[in-house]
């Protein structure tokens, strides 16, 4: 009975009727709340509807049923990471995706690629959040410095007014000095804003990923580098694919197997540090 409801839900999902499909999966869950596939199917349906909090709920429910260490739960772990990213909870998404990525590698699960991408997206989002906070802080600093310039000019204008009233200067001199003070203040604020823009806007600074962090196969930044017997590092997923197929080192062509690829932990740490400060590198 519950299986029939699930089958109907799958049909509607394939036809693109996500609202209808969600309804059938919900009915199936009501009949039998112990079948993890009902939850994973509803999770992926809800992700089509961008109901991320509900995706999080369903993915967690499926993982709970499967058990955290069950490879069958890896797909749900990936949905969970995606939902958390969309809910702007990158640190949680990062933790879920990294653990699942390690687990997926160990059992050679097909989710490794998706999980790897979500680890990177999470790193990027963590950086972006920190960057936004930094810019906001910078804007506050700029605001208070601008206020100082404005207070300064107000004081100078008041003094000028006083000199006019005491007859120390004439109307014409007053007008000229007043204009000069305004222009001077405007120029100061323009310069300040320019200086802050240069300091804060990443587009002005050159965004370059150092060569030692760039994978020679995908040309992207490595987040899980492994080193070959010839001493060159590549990103794990790309080099694994090549070595499984060709059975040789891409540079020396000496025969190697995937077991000869060792984690390059120092480079991994360097990459993590770089990404924490340069989240843009994920899209580079």
């Amino acid at each position: 009975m519950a299986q029939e409801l699930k089958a109907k839900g799958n049909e509607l999902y394939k036809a693109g009727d996500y609202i209808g499909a969600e309804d059938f999966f919900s009915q199936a869950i009501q009949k039998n709340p112990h079948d993890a596939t009902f939850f994973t199917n509803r999770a992926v349906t809800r992700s089509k509807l961008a109901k991320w909090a509900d995706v999080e709920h369903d993915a967690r429910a499926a993982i709970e049923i499967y058990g955290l260490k069950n490879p069958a739960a890896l797909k749900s772990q990936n949905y969970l990471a995606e939902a958390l990213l969309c809910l702007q909870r990158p640190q949680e998404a990062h933790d879920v995706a990294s653990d699942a990525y390690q687990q997926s590698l160990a059992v050679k699960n097909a989710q490794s690629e998706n999980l790897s991408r979500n680890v990177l997206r999470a790193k990027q989002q963590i950086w972006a959040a920190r960057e936004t906070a930094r810019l906001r802080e910078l804007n506050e600093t700029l605001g208070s410095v601008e206020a100082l310039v404005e207070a300064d000019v107000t004081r100078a204008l008041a003094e000028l007014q006083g000199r006019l009233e005491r007859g120390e200067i004439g109307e014409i001199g007053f007008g000229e000095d007043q204009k000069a003070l305004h222009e001077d203040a405007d120029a100061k604020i323009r310069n300040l804003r320019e200086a802050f823009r240069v300091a804060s806007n990443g587009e002005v600074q050159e965004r370059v990923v150092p060569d030692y962090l760039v994978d020679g196969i995908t040309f992207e930044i490595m987040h899980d580098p492994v080193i070959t017997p010839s001493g060159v590092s590549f990103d794990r997923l790309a080099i694994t694919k090549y070595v499984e197929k060709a059975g040789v080192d891409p540079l020396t062509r000496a025969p190697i197997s995937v077991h000869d690829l060792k984690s390059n932990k120092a480079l991994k740490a360097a990459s993590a540090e770089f990404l924490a400060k340069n989240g843009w590198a994920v899209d580079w």
Partner: protein
Amino acid sequence: MFATKRLSKELVKMQEHVPPGIAIVKCDNLEEWQMDIKILDQNPLYLDQTYRLKFTFSNKYPIEPPEVQFIQCPDSTGTPRTIPMHPHIYSNGIICLDLLGSAGWSPVQTVESVCMSLQSMLTANNRNERPPGDQEFIATNRRRIRDINFVYEDDNV
């Protein structure tokens, strides 16, 4: 899965700088590119000539090699191109070079490095001839380039 991102990065790099004698002719999509190469030394076989290469990429690039061959362009195009004479290049433009075969390919190779390898393969040649069995090969070969089992017996060329 890597192909599009990797190729767009190669393109960005080459638009900044290409080695002498290499030029991008056509790269408006990420499936087929055309490149022009020139031989820079005074080798009389290739003096003052420009040759056109066609690269075809699968979505498994760079895990799998691109298909690379020389192509002809008629005079009417304004950029006439012929197939260079070489004992490893058939008259239909198919190239017998180990690094372009599935077994010799390495994913660290790039469009640029392939062009440079072909430049040096031509530079080093002094034989004005086609591979043995050229006429028969071009009349009968219907296989895809990377599936052809070339024998790379002659490393001196």
